């Protein structure tokens, strides 16, 4: 699936919810199901510090594709993080670098990206794209 196909699928998932409770219960479930990041990757280098919750992001290349693993100590942020990973992980650095991440806004979760000081989610998205740019540059220079 392309990045946008995954985003569109998430958007249609959210169309099923008609109130905030079912929407957030879905996100909480995603957070609970998301596999935790192995402790060895919860390093200072991988931490994206928000004012309130911590987010860890680990990136690696596998067969030309950039893959992400992540975690957070707050469950809702974990659910949101899992969606960002689902959308962006496993694509080429170039695709990730130029991706337009629009699903958060479309499902009414844009405030979580705007509150940069409170959850580090916007910083995480920025970091994911930065990895895209970095690995893209590396492959060009190689």
């Amino acid at each position, binding site marked *: 699936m392309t990045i946008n196909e995954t985003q569109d699928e998430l958007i249609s998932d959210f169309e099923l919810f008609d109130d*905030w409770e079912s929407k957030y*219960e879905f996100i909480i479930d995603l957070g609970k199901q998301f596999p935790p990041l192995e402790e060895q990757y919860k390093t200072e280098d991988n931490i994206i510090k928000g004012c309130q919750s911590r987010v860890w992001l680990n990136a690696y290349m596998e067969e030309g594709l950039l893959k992400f693993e992540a975690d957070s*100590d707050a469950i809702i942020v974990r659910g949101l993080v899992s969606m960002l990973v689902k959308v962006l992980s496993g694509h080429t650095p170039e695709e990730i670098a130029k991706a337009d991440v629009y699903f958060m806004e479309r499902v009414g979760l844009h405030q979580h990206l705007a509150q940069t000081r409170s959850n580090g989610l916007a910083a995480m998205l920025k970091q994911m794209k930065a990895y895209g740019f970095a690995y893209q540059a590396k492959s060009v220079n190689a």
Partner: protein
Amino acid sequence: MSHNLNIASIRGDFPILNEVVNGKQLVYFDNAATTQKPRLVLDALAGYYEHYNANIHRGIHHLAEKATSAFEQSRKRLQAFLNAAHSEEIIFTYGTTDGINLVASSYGRKFLKEGDEVIISTMEHHSNIVPWQMLCEEKGCILKVIPINDQGELLMDEYEKLLTEKTKFVSVVHVSNALGTINPIKEIIAKAHAVGAKVLIDGAQASSHIEIDVQELDCDFYSLSLHKIYGPTGMGILYGKRDLLNAMPPYRGGGEMIKEVTFAKTTYNELPYKFEAGTPNIADVVAAKFALDYVDALGKANIAAYENELLAYATGAVKEIEGLRIIGQAKEKVSVLSFVIDGIHHQDIGVLLDQQGIAVRTGHHCTQPLMNRFNITGTSRASFAVYNTIEEIDKLVQGLHKVKRMLR
């Protein structure tokens, strides 16, 4: 103690309380971060810009005179609010943080030297930690910290042990923003003076709840923000004893703070203008007077009595929530209820309460060393003001039950 306030009528004075958030009537419990503004403060702001906006202390035209007069009336109003001996002891700042930086930078740089000691406490806001760390790093001074007990109260005997002839400055918060603890500042000041140290009190959280008499307290400096006292954002005051302020060098250079400028030498203006370089925040200073009038018309004792009722009710009501632990159980505290719930991250609590239209503050409250002391990364904090109600606290409790159900 009882109050004689008509809360329904008071709520009517605050237009923002009619806001609908996520489809629910707003419940605003983030008053320790900033209080909402009554209509007369909003009208004063608009009135200033509509009728007498002009730069002060310079022009000779009608508007300039009117603006200057309103600006200086606010200074006198704040002098009365703190019972300062002289109006020039009231320096307008951008807020509490700015006032602390002014003292650390101006007084600290001139009068502190290598090996001198500065005392703060465990429950300080970062704004009363970092300026002193910067000063200590620059001058080679030593920063000492008063510890607290598990209830969130200062250990006064430990404080006494820290005080020596090397102690040159003590800077302590009047009321803790994260815990609500009211510190025994009169005693803290007297003990510091006994060893010859000067004292600054961070009054950001105290000023809307407690009567402040700087002469009776005998503090050397007192810094506060008006936006926490139902006034506008972006302005505060630093109170300082006149002799000390006179002995201190200016903090910022620019217009207004000078007497005469040549390229060879500049002579400085007198107090309070020496510390007010540049065009000040005139509109907010002017409107601040109306906030203080509002508070005094209600009566601080009435406000405190009512807020204590809210705090007592909330403290009892949240006990029914399993796994909830209150952080900050001092005997003397203002209407701040900080708590953690076992197994639930404070941010999840904040997000899910917000969906229910309830605004609380979650996080470390800019007091990371204090959070470390309690071995937590943050709390959820509900802080109450005079327009809050018992019914709103019931909504908070129901909201927390829902949070627990959803995260189960």
